[in-house]
C-alpha cells in the first residue's frame, strides 16, 4: 500500500474537482438552453405543446436523478450505442436541469402580476408585444435568484455521476478511501470542497433575493 500524505489527498481531490466543475457547467449551460426553449414553448404554445412539456417536467421532477443517470447510461447501451459514463452523465444532468429550470422560469413569468397583462392589453399590445416588452423583462429579474440557487442543486447533482463511474470529486473520494482507509478525513474534505463550490452561490442567490425584495418586486 502506498502512503498518502494529507497533501496527496487534497491534491488528488482538487484535480478531480475540476471535473465536477466542468460537468456542472455543461449541465447548467445545456440545461438552461434547453430549459429556455421549453419555457417559451410551454408559455406560448397550444396544449399540444404544453401537455407533453408538463409531463416531461413532471417525470424529471418525480424520479430519482440516479435513475435518470442509469437510464441514460444503460438506455444508450440498449439502443446499441456505447456511451462513456461522462456522456451519459452529461445527458442526464442536462435533461434534469432543463426540466427544473423550465418549471422555475414558468413560475417567474406567472409571478408577474396580472395587472401588468391587463394594462398592456388596454394599451393595445398583443400577446407577443406584451411578453417581450412587459412580462419577460420583469420575469427575467425575478428569475435570477432562484436560477443561481438551482445551480447549487446542479453541482450537487453531479456527485451522482460517480455512481456510473465518472471520476469527479465524489468518485475520487471513494477511490482514495479504498486506497488509504482514511474515510473520515477524505469524506470531510470532499464535503468541504462541495461546500466551497456551493456556499458562495447560495449566499449570492440569497443576496439577490433580498435585493429584489428591497426593490419591492417580491
Amino acid at each position, binding site marked *: 500500500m502506498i502512503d498518502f500524505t494529507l497533501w496527496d489527498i487534497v491534491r488528488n481531490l482538487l484535480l478531480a474537482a475540476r471535473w465536477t466543475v466542468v460537468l456542472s457547467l455543461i449541465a447548467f449551460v445545456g440545461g438552461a438552453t434547453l430549459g429556455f426553449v421549453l419555457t417559451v414553448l410551454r408559455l406560448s404554445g397550444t396544449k399540444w405543446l404544453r401537455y407533453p412539456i408538463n409531463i416531461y417536467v413532471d417525470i424529471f421532477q418525480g424520479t*430519482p436523478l440516479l435513475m435518470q443517470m442509469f437510464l441514460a447510461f444503460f438506455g444508450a*447501451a440498449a439502443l446499441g450505442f456505447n456511451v462513456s459514463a461522462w456522456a451519459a452523465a452529461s445527458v442526464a444532468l442536462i435533461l434534469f436541469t432543463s426540466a427544473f429550470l423550465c418549471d422555475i422560469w414558468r413560475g417567474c413569468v406567472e409571478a408577474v402580476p396580472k395587472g401588468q397583462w391587463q394594462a398592456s392589453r388596454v394599451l393595445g399590445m398583443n400577446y407577443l408585444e406584451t411578453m417581450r416588452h412587459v412580462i419577460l423583462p420583469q420575469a427575467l429579474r425575478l428569475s435570477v435568484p432562484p436560477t443561481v440557487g438551482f445551480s447549487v442543486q446542479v453541482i450537487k447533482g453531479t*456527485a451522482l455521476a460517480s455512481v456510473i463511474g465518472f471520476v469527479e470529486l465524489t468518485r475520487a*473520494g*471513494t477511490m482514495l478511501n479504498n486506497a488509504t482507509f482514511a474515510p*473520515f478525513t477524505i469524506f470531510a474534505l470532499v*464535503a468541504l470542497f*462541495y461546500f466551497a463550490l456551493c456556499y458562495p452561490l*447560495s449566499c449570492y442567490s440569497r443576496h439577490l433575493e433580498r435585493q429584489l425584495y428591497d426593490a419591492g418586486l417580491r
Partner: protein
Amino acid sequence: MGISLDFMALSPYLGELLRGLFTTVVLTMVTTLAGLMLAIVVAYLRLNAAAWVGMALGGYVELIRNTPFIVQLFFIFFGLPALGIRIDAITAAFLAMTLNLAAYSAEILRAGIESTARGQLEAARALGMSSLQSYRHVVLIPAFSRIYPALISQCIIVMLGSAVVSQISVYDLTYAANFIQSRNFRSFEAYLLVTLIYLLLAIGMRQTFLLAGRRLFAYRQGEHA
C-alpha cells in the same frame, strides 16, 4: 439496429422488487416523520435560543444544504466508524436522510414562521401566552399551512434522493434493480421499471400529503373561494 425490451424477464424477481419497495417506503415514512419533527425543533431554536445555538444550527443547515446527499451518506457510513461510532447501513441511511430533510425543512419552516403576521404574535403575548405557547398554538399551524406545498416537495425530494442509499448496500428499490440487472443482464428494463415505481411513489406521496393537508388545515377551506 433496434431496441427490444423484455419486461417478462423481470417477472421472476417480483420478490426482490417488493422487498426493495418495502425498504424505500418504510425508510421514507420514518425519516419524513423524524425529519419534520427535528425541523420544528431546529427552526424554533434558531429563532429563539441563545445566539451561539442559533449559529451552530445555522452552520448545520448550511452544511447540509451545500453538500451532496451522497457525500453526507458516505461520511456517516464510512467516516463515523473511524471515530469509533459503529452503525449499520440502514441506520446510516436513516440518519443521513433525517438530517438532510430536517435541514431543508427547518429553513422552509423558518421562512414560514418569519412571515407570520407580527400582529398574531403580539395578540398571543397580550393574552399572556409564553413564547413556547404562542409558538405552539398561534404560529405553528398557520406557518405550516403556508409552507406546506414547499414541504411536500422537499419530502418527495428526500424520497427520490434515497435511491442513493443503495450505494451503501441498503436493500432498497434501486438496490433491487441493481441486483436484478446483475442476474438477468436486462439493465434497461430493470431501471425503467423501478423509475416508474419511483414516479408512482412520488405521485402517491403528493396525493397523500394533499389529502392530509385538507384535514389539517380545514380552517383555510373557502378562503380562496
